[in-house]
């Protein structure tokens, strides 16, 4: 089994995808392609086996965002650059249950990091942000994501990874 990760294509088979989480399944099946092509809300990258190159077995979605300098509380503005803070949003990451435990999540997040570095090289970006399910916080922390405090206690945990850290990993 050789895994390929590439952009979502129109005729990819997503109907059978089941990661065990309905919102993540629903997004891939109903919204990912439209958001990528029509709404320009996020780009989804899919994992496929090269023996069945249409059947999606995992995916992640990336988008760019920024925080205006004026949005930060005044006492924290000092030290920030006098511009908007650009960041990459890792909006979703999911693996089909049939392929869980085979390192597919690792392969997907590795590719997300590489793409993020390329984006940062091209347009400038400071960090990656993700909203992790509480039960997945430990998994993201393994890659160096740290919790951003102050979110709703029952909702997802917003997490931060400095792209300088990712670049340092590349140089090790």
């Amino acid at each position, binding site marked *: 089994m*050789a895994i*390929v990760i*590439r*952009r979502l*294509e129109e*005729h990819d088979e997503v109907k059978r995808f089941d990661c065990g989480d309905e919102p993540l399944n629903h997004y891939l099946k109903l919204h990912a392609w439209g958001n990528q092509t029509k*709404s*320009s*809300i*996020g*780009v989804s*990258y899919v994992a*496929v086996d*090269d023996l069945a*190159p*249409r059947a999606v077995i995992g995916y992640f979605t*990336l*988008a*760019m*965002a*920024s*925080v205006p300098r004026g*949005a*930060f*509380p005044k006492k*924290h*503005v000092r*030290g*920030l650059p006098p511009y908007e*803070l650009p960041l990459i*949003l890792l*909006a979703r990451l999911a693996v089909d249950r049939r392929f869980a435990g085979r390192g597919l999540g*690792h392969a997907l*997040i*590795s590719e997300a*990091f590489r*793409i993020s570095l*390329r*984006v940062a090289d091209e347009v400038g970006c*400071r*960090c990656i*942000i993700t909203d992790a399910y509480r039960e997945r916080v430990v998994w993201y922390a*393994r*890659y*160096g994501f740290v919790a*951003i*405090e*102050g*979110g*709703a206690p029952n909702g997802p945990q*917003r997490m*931060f990874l*400095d792209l*300088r*850290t*990712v670049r*340092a*990993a*590349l140089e*090790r």
Partner: protein
Amino acid sequence: MALKTKRKPIEPTTINRARKAKFQADLALAENRAVRRLKEELQLSSNTDFLSDAVALFQWAVSERKLGRRIISESVGGERNVLVFPRLERVAPDTSLPRVQIQWTERELQSLAKLTTAGEANHPTEALIRAMRD
């Protein structure tokens, strides 16, 4: 198709002549049959011509994907198929990401400001180092 290059040592008298590389391919029987059939269909008499045309086609496909263009076939009835060839995806650009809005609470923004203004970034974890090596 695995291609092996044979290189002869260059003698001083041949340095200025046009250099040609020799290729030797170890093909499975099915691949060999496919090559013969293609040569017949394309009316190519030599393996050199076959390889030369194949390289030209591959070069074109790579250059298209490098520009971010998709390669599509279209039937007479207008039905379209997009070529998905995993190796070609390695050269496709990935850097155009759309922009979205994120909602933040004030405390999240405080926390983000602290993390962003840290003088030095955290050291990469073992998992992150592995991710960037794999």
